[in-house]
């Protein structure tokens, strides 16, 4: 298989990115809003009086952003720009460049979401595996139902409760933002501590909210490995509990979980939109939300294109590593 399969799979990767990017181009335009006109109207409404030259202004800006050209021409420019990762200017925050805005939000989202996803993946899977393990400690099985109940609560609600109880009533943690208002982002200990302090609540909300889901999936897979002949044989051989648990149990239950992890890591670029909004976190999720609300085509396009590439890469790596995770999987030439 390898070379042929690899080439085919990479080809599919590019195909997926292209098709998804196309969808991403046409989808916001179906809604039929005219972002420039909207923005100008909004500004005029704020300014108080309507100007006579409004229509000209809209036209001028539309030609500046290239929205007055025929759709297919816009589409071609779009494709060329995307291959160079040039996302153009933000409509709502002109003259800021979309790529700058994204770069500014990216570290926040990547640190927060990637960290919490990995933490909850590891804890959740170990917990879940123990749920299906006959010799698991008692206390491990009793903390499961509360965690499951927790994961049924939406992130943002959990976040709000945390903000209310810990941040507002007990005043133990900040209510809002990624760092203290007025602080200047820089690489220093005090600023780092400030950021960590502000990340505690959103991180807790995400971890508490997603642990149960990981555990549930792992438990379900682990149960199916328990009755397998090779487990019985390994037990009869007298292998240690640890080996049985990790190498014979979890290893054989990990595939769907690894898939889910890759997908959520791919999606992490778009951030946990609602968590970021509730906590006023300066990440990509907040940016995406603003972009969608303000019909900021270029901003949304830029973020979604990043998500497309990230998920495309994640699934590509995933498909290539399946045979490593489970040598029984073979890629046959079709």
């Amino acid at each position, binding site marked *: 298989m390898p070379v042929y399969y690899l080439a085919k799979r990479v080809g599919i990767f590019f195909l997926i990115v292209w098709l998804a990017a196309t969808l991403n181009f046409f989808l916001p335009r179906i809604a039929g809003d005219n972002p420039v006109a909207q923005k100008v109207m909004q500004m005029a409404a704020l300014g108080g009086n309507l100007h006579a030259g409004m229509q000209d202004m809209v036209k001028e800006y539309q030609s500046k952003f290239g929205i007055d050209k025929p759709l297919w021409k816009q589409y071609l420019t779009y494709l060329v720009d995307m291959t160079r990762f040039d996302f153009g200017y933000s409509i709502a925050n002109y003259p800021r460049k979309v790529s700058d805005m994204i770069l500014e939000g990216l570290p926040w989202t990547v640190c927060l979401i990637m960290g919490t996803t990995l933490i909850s993946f590891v804890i959740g899977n170990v917990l879940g595996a123990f749920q299906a393990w006959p010799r698991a400690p008692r206390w491990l099985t009793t903390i499961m139902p509360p965690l499951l109940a927790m994961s049924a609560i*939406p992130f943002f609600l959990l976040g*709000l409760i945390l903000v209310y109880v810990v941040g507002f009533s007990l005043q133990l943690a900040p209510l809002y933002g990624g760092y203290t208002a007025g602080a200047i982002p820089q690489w220093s200990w005090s600023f780092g501590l400030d950021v960590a302090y502000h990340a505690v609540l959103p991180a807790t909300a995400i971890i508490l909210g997603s642990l149960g889901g990981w555990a549930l999936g792992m438990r379900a897979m682990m149960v199916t490995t328990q009755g397998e002949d090779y487990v019985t044989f390994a037990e009869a051989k007298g292998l240690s509990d640890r080996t049985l648990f990790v190498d014979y149990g979890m290893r054989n239950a990990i*595939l769907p979980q690894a898939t889910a992890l890759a997908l959520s890591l791919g999606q992490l670029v778009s951030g946990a939109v609602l968590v970021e909004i509730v906590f006023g976190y300066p990440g990509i999720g907040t940016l995406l939300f603003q972009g969608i609300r303000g019909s900021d085509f270029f901003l949304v396009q830029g973020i979604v294109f990043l998500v497309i590439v990230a998920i495309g890469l994640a699934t590509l790596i995933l*498909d290539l590593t399946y045979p490593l995770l489970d040598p029984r999987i073979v890629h*046959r030439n079709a």
Partner: protein
Amino acid sequence: MGLTWMNYLARNRELGVGLALLLGMIAFAVIGGLLVDPQNARPLSARVLQPPSWALPFGSDRQGRNLFAVITTGTLLTLRIGLIAGILGVGIGAAIAFVAAYYGGWVDSILRSIVDIGLTVPNLMILIVVALTLRQGMTVNVMALVIASLAWLYPARTIRSQVLTLRERAFVQIARLSGTSGPGIIVKELMPNLLPYLMASLVGSVCCDSRLDRARCARPRRLRGADAWYDALLGQLHRRGD
């Protein structure tokens, strides 16, 4: 009959707790619905921003909606959306996963590509575009269908990964050698092995889908539960802040 049920519950205490929670939620919605007129869920049915009291157990929000009425009417709707979207989503996703992974080859390539493309577009964006296109708001069932149309992608990808290894197992090969057809193998050999995971996905999906309906873009005629809880809590926060 009744006795076996009781025995079964006594042996599986977790099941009992779960059922009790679910029944409690339904009971809350049904009994609450009898105690309060659903019409009070509309704006201006109470004084604006009232703290909880006997007349208004959960207080009222900025628009003067009685939040107790809002939650009792919303809970069942959310449950309905979660169930419809969850069952459809996991059902379709599992079917596609089994077919794609078992048959492999170009079937797998095409189905997997479709799933991967679908996964890349943010849900929130699709929901908002749908909401903007259907300007006049939508019924609860339509909304459930919209969410279901997004919900099958994720299970399809995760379930497929396990079928990839299952199809190489000895029992599947024996079934194939003894002349069982493809669909027969999928239903009789593969599915039972994944039943626990399918159920887990269903639970996760129901939770997640009733969570999705929070995206308040749909300008619904009726409020749903997740929203209502959010509003109740947010209302309290505002009041404390004022």
